[in-house]
């Protein structure tokens, strides 16, 4: 056989057999072994086509792993919580984004999409179960399942799904700045409890307004004072961080302006989901900019709804994603839809 023929046959075999074997062998055998840390490949697809695959992984506490997310379909925003401050940002179709992470303590974490990606976007989540290497079979419990605020609401038998209409609403948007002057003028005349942050979290602005009117303030002055009491002590940086969280996680359904008209609202309606106004009616996502409903609710109820999710409404549980502090930040931010912050 001629030398050129032998060379050609060898090259042909290398192309047809060697090349695929080399590519697949490297990717699926050699590459994982050569990696300095364990790498977990996660496909991040829209929920309609499978969502995160795999949608649950197990990692030992203290183990450093590389999570490699690849996106096959549409842009997704990938983040991991709670409390890890891991936001990989928007990942476009075909992109691969990876992050190395070490989970120090056993617990449950969630990787989730925070960019509106499909009608079922809110379902796009996966669970990281971090187990104790000394006791791998022990039940892993997430932090969100032990929440004192939710326990307190339960103890007070507060129905967080009950309607909470305000008895009165302001004629104009209450001003935090003008409210500061009103509160300063009142001084010690401020009704009991209103100066206490814990009281304010457990009561609605409408309740506070009623007690302020009782001490002689005009309706408008009372609303300004409530605005100040609720938001005057919240610094701008906290609200800015909360605004980012809201934009990424809430605006898709509730709207950038809190009007309940985000792009996901129609999708939820099409899926037969939405806020339960009463037994027979299904409404859209809550409109935070609507004073009638917003001002009648207490902060801890909103906190609870955020963390638990809205039963059957399409509102996902954010307790597995946000820390309690992040949740309170969000609750603070919700008030900015009804109160004017200068």
């Amino acid at each position: 056989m001629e030398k050129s023929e032998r060379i050609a046959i060898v090259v042909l075999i290398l192309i047809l057999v060697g090349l695929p074997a080399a590519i697949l062998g490297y990717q699926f055998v050699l590459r994982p072994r050569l990696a300095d840390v364990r790498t977990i490949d996660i496909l991040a697809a829209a929920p309609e086509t499978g969502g995160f695959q795999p949608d649950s992984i197990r990692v030992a506490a203290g183990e450093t792993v590389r999570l490699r997310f690849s996106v096959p379909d549409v842009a997704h925003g990938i983040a991991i919580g709670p409390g890890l401050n891991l936001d990989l940002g928007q990942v476009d179709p075909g992109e691969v984004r990876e992050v190395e992470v070490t989970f120090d303590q056993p617990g449950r974490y969630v990787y989730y999409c925070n960019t509106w990606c499909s009608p079922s976007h809110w379902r796009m989540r996966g669970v990281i179960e971090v187990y104790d290497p000394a006791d791998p079979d022990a039940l892993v419990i997430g932090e969100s399942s032990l929440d004192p605020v939710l326990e307190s609401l339960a103890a007070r038998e507060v129905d967080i799904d009950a309607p909470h209409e305000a008895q009165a609403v302001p004629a104009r948007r209450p001003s935090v700045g003008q409210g500061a002057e009103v509160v300063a003028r009142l001084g010690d005349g401020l009704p009991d409890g209103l100066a206490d942050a814990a009281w304010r979290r457990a009561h609605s602005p409408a309740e506070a307004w009623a007690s302020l009117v009782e001490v002689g303030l005009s309706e408008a002055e009372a609303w300004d004072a409530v605005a100040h009491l609720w938001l005057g002590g919240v610094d701008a940086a906290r609200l800015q961080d909360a605004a980012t969280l809201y934009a990424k996680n809430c605006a898709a359904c509730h709207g950038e302006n809190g009007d309940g008209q985000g792009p996901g609202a129609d999708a939820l309606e099409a899926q037969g989901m939405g806020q339960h106004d009463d037994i027979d009616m299904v409404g859209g996502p809550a409109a935070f900019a609507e004073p009638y409903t917003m001002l009648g609710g207490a902060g801890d109820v909103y906190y609870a709804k955020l963390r638990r999710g809205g039963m059957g409404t399409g509102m996902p549980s954010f307790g597995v994603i946000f820390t309690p502090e992040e949740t309170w930040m969000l609750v603070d931010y919700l008030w900015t839809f009804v109160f004017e912050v200068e």
Partner: protein
Amino acid sequence: MTGRRIELTRSRRLRALLKQRALQPALMLFFLFFFVVALLSGLVGTPAGSHNFGMIFVWIVWWALLIIFLVPFLGRAWCAVCPLPAPGEWLQRRAIVRRTPGKPRSLGWRWPRRLRNIWLQNFGFLGVALFSTIILTRPYVTAWALLGMMFLAVLLSVFFRNRVFCRYVCPVGGFIGLYALTSSFELRVKNRQVCKDHAVKECVVGNECGYGCPWMVFPGNLERNAYCGLCTECFKTCSKDNVALYVRPFGADLLVRKGRRLDEAFKALIMLACAIIYNAVLLGPRGWVKDWANMETLPHWAAYGAGFLTANLLVMPGLFMLTTFAARAASRTRAPLKRLFVDYAYSLVPMGLAGWIAFCFSFVFVNGSYAISVLSDPFGWGWNLFGTRSVPWTPVLLDLALALQVGTLLAGMAFSIVVAYRIVRQHAETNAQAWRGTLPLAGFLTGVTLVFLRLYVG
């Protein structure tokens, strides 16, 4: 279109290279390498087309190179190096490089006479085009389509001798052959008399230096590029050294009367209609059409398919038949309408090619940059072979692209009108009659150009 030709094979080095048996297999193996990578990326790589080697390098890089450069300047050169028929041909020859004694092995079936045309290629192309939105957006579909074509090529090579797949079946080869008529490149014999006087047609039956023409063409009679696959076997077998490569004016073959057939005429019409439909569906603002073509629902796709086939097989041929009728009347030509329909259809070839080139410009400048990142990460697995994985998608020279599209379309229209006049003149008795006969054809071509321009410019 007619004029001086320059013989490239006067170069001794080029002649020596073309006579090398290893030349074609080496090029085929080179492209087979990329073909296998493209297949693997489709089968196991990322489903995101923009980061998949197969999608980017088949449907952007290769397709654009084929349409913008290879076909206009090198005719069927791609057919010479295409890896699809390679395994089948090597099996027939029981060799890759060397010349094995005797004829290539197969079961020796005869290709049906009724199918010795490009009708199968016409319908094959329509079939692929019907699913093109699906093929173009799903890497695994592309991979299976390519694998299927290679399998079919191998299967046919078992039953039939030579390149039956390339000549009569390959849906890509059909339009490459038609548009190669416009090419500025040709393989021809230097002196036909030498071939006539040479009793042993070595280029047909083969000799110890090479195989008989796998494309079943007699180079001594070759007047058109349509069915010469530029495999260079005739360079190797011709003991008279009578085969040459030439550079020639564009479109010379369009004026060759011999060989014009209804199947080729329909190919010209189908390609023109498809160019318009592709532009409208894939690039136009009507997302719902794309959804229908993308099989959003089966009834929608069926409606799209019905419209697509109607446009290709009824509307475009029907309009052209009316145009031919008008041209015949205007030029007072007595030739049968069918004859004129076929002949005049060749005037659509430059326009069709221009439409496809313009279509390529629309995505090359917009999406070409994906090729840089895909080279480093061909499977979307996070590889970074050449350090270019993170090169962002960057549309470039969009203004230039639009100018090139408009310029190409206008040039294609002008070229087509000139060809139309010359073809009409072949039937008309006087120049004046030819000009009058050209008017309806020029009107048809202008209308087609305006449709294209509306799609690009709005």
